[in-house]
């Protein structure tokens, strides 16, 4: 493979030429905060066409192996393409897109059988299959290994029952990767298995969740006697937790600097807001403007620092990714608060229907999503405390006993260890 590894410079030239000839320039967009947009079927259909175009030209799955429809190049090549494609219209599958090409695709590649890889990876890369995660549950978020959806073997099929929540984009996804408990008589981490579930399978109900900002990008699902063939198990039965580790590594890209450059213009949204309310010379508003910008800038440089360390083969330290995530989860709400502080009443009220004017309030609501999504701030703090700083763990009440007992005992917990 090393022989076909085109140099980054050559690849950049090739990518640039193709992009200029084949992609449309994107209209300039204002900075938007963390947002889970509603995605329409038309937008998804258009993105599938565009993804197919990339696929046919060899620019889909740039770092995926060739035998599954990828290009067989490195993540650095992928990054080069993303840099060159900035400012052009590229496929946008919303939140489910990031999930599909990241954690889902990577875990299929790493843990899937040859049949699963051959069936799904080329369709993922060509835009034919969009995936989501059946992952968190109403009663298991941070404690992911404590999920309660059950999968019971019945002949050549597993029968799944339970409920899932916070699945990004499940309402337009074709497939889901679902974590379920196949063994209740072993400790929680050892009884888990991943299943490949078509979202249109009988017994699967997908509902959209209306969020605090009125959008509905996330979904909840109910699984009622959903029958899944044993060939649709990802990884080994009972070994779901090791697959989960792969997924988490690819989820924790959050907080890394991607292809965007260093933010140098001082918080344009905050400056515009201060101008609107006549506070550009107000020392208090100016403190807020600078504070917002400094957080953007600091997050960028943290991401770059951590990204470099994560890519360094000499010092493997996947746990430092939690720094980027915790910084984001800490900074986003503070940044969003600056908008409220600058705009005051005009950030908290607006003429009916004025989408731009309500942006500070929407950001204020959405700005806190990062502190609980994809690993809460507290989970990041545990990770940093234990795996980066080497602090000892809290005593555990559930590591060493069968999960069925854990659930029963927790209801009568007295505070005693053991």
């Amino acid at each position: 493979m090393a022989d076909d590894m085109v140099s980054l410079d050559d690849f950049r030239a090739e990518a640039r030429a193709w992009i200029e000839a084949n992609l449309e320039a994107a209209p300039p967009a204002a900075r938007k905060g963390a947002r889970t947009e509603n995605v329409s079927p038309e937008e998804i259909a258009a993105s599938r066409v565009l993804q197919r175009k990339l696929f046919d030209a060899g620019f889909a799955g740039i770092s995926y192996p060739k035998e599954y429809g990828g290009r067989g190049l490195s993540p650095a090549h992928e990054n080069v393409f993303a840099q060159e494609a900035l400012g052009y219209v590229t496929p946008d599958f919303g939140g489910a897109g990031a999930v599909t090409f990241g954690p889902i695709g990577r875990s299929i590649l790493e843990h899937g059988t040859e049949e699963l890889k051959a069936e799904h990876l080329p369709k993922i890369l060509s835009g034919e299959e969009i995936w989501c995660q059946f992952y968190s549950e109403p009663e298991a978020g941070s404690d992911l290994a404590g999920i309660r959806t059950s999968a019971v073997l019945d002949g050549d099929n597993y029968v799944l029952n339970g409920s899932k929540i916070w699945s990004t984009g499940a309402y337009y996804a074709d497939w889901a990767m679902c974590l379920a408990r196949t063994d209740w008589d072993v400790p929680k981490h050892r009884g888990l298995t991943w299943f490949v579930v078509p979202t249109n399978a009988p017994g699967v109900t997908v509902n959209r969740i209306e969020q605090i900002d009125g959008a509905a990008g996330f979904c909840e699902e109910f699984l009622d006697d959903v029958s899944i063939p044993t060939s649709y198990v990802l990884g080994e039965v009972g070994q779901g937790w090791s697959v989960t580790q792969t997924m988490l590594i690819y989820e924790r890209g959050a907080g890394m600097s991607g292809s965007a450059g260093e933010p140098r213009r001082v918080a344009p949204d905050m400056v515009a807001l201060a101008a609107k309310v006549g506070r550009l010379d107000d020392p208090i508003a100016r403190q807020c403007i600078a504070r917002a910008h400094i957080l953007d800038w600091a997050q960028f440089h943290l991401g770059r620092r951590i990204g470099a360390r994560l890519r360094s083969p000499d010092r493997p330290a996947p746990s430092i990714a939690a720094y980027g995530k915790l910084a984001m989860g800490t900074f986003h709400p503070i940044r969003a608060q600056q908008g409220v502080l600058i705009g005051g009443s005009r950030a908290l009220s607006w003429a009916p229907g004025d989408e731009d004017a309500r942006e500070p309030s929407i950001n204020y609501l959405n700005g806190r999503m990062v502190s609980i999504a994809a690993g809460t701030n507290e989970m990041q703090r545990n990770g940093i405390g234990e795996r980066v700083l080497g602090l000892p763990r809290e005593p555990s009440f559930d590591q060493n006993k069968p999960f069925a007992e854990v659930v029963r005992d927790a209801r009568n917990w007295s505070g005693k260890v053991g």
Partner: protein
Amino acid sequence: MDDDLSADQQVLVDAATRFAEDTFPVTKLRERAFDDAAFAAAYRRQAGELGWFSLVVPEEQGGGSVSGNGVLDAALVAYTRGRLLQPVGFVGANVVAYAIATAGTDAQRAGALTALIAGDAPGAWVVGDLSGAPALDGVVDATPNGDGWSLSGSAVMVDDADDTAWLLVAAATPDGPAQLLVAPGAAGVSFAPVDGLDLSRRYADVSFTGAAVPASALVGEIGDRTFAERLLTLASTLTVAECVGAMHQELDMTVDYAKQRIAFGRPIGSFQAIKHLLADTSTMLEVSKAVALAAAGQAGDDDAHAAQAASQAKAFVADAAMDQAQACFQVFGGISFTWEHDQHLFFRRITTGAEQFGDASWHREHVCVLAGIGSGN
């Protein structure tokens, strides 16, 4: 601070570390060894031999960086100095040397610059007003007097300043701000040593009472505010790096303590109340390292964005430093309220570093000024 040091940078850092550990371990700090003029002079010369005062000076003027980015190299030294609580007006000497190297006259280079590089004399940039904020328009008044000026006014808490020091004075002339080089022992300049929170350095208030300064003392041009900005960029960047070094060491000590101190039957670091505080602190330290390196890198590259980066880094680190000082104190508990324990030495130094050359609020305002936000710009 930087995980990717070049071999030459590693040599620089290793030499700084050895020198600091041998010459000024914490026992020397506690003895206030640096108050002894002979000790201070010897320390300064050795530091000069290690290149501490010449990294931001071009080779043809007797200086030289090890990586091609002198500010980045100096920031690595500053970080090591902060980690090991080293004395000497490192920031001031480098700012004065840099000013002369980039805009000084041949006579200034032959005299002051040579002395500063060798560590023969302290150097201090006199710019801080009573609040500690950098007065870029001049902290003392310069009245025209013959071919030169007469200085009057005062500056407080100037690091490593005494009558052997070369002072670069940010002066307000009728034609705008000017940087004036005042020779050691100049008449009309007096130094009043002050005690301070930070025990690892020595400070003095500096007063000018009609001090006569010749025209040849001018470094750069009169009214060149950009030049003052460049000096502030260097001062902020190196102060940030020193501060981050001290933060690193303080947090290391604190994490070790949290692993060893037992309460309620287990190491206190196992409690999430402590663990999460340390994780937050460690995250902000990681961000501090990232922004310190970014600011230093841009300053050394003469990036057009360097002044803004320096102020952003200073603002971020100043807040993070003071939050960290409290967090570490809280984890240590009673032991850190004793004179005997070292935590307060870091607490003191970090707090001082956060305030020097402008605190967080000053630098946030400065970010807006540099970006041209508002009608005053």
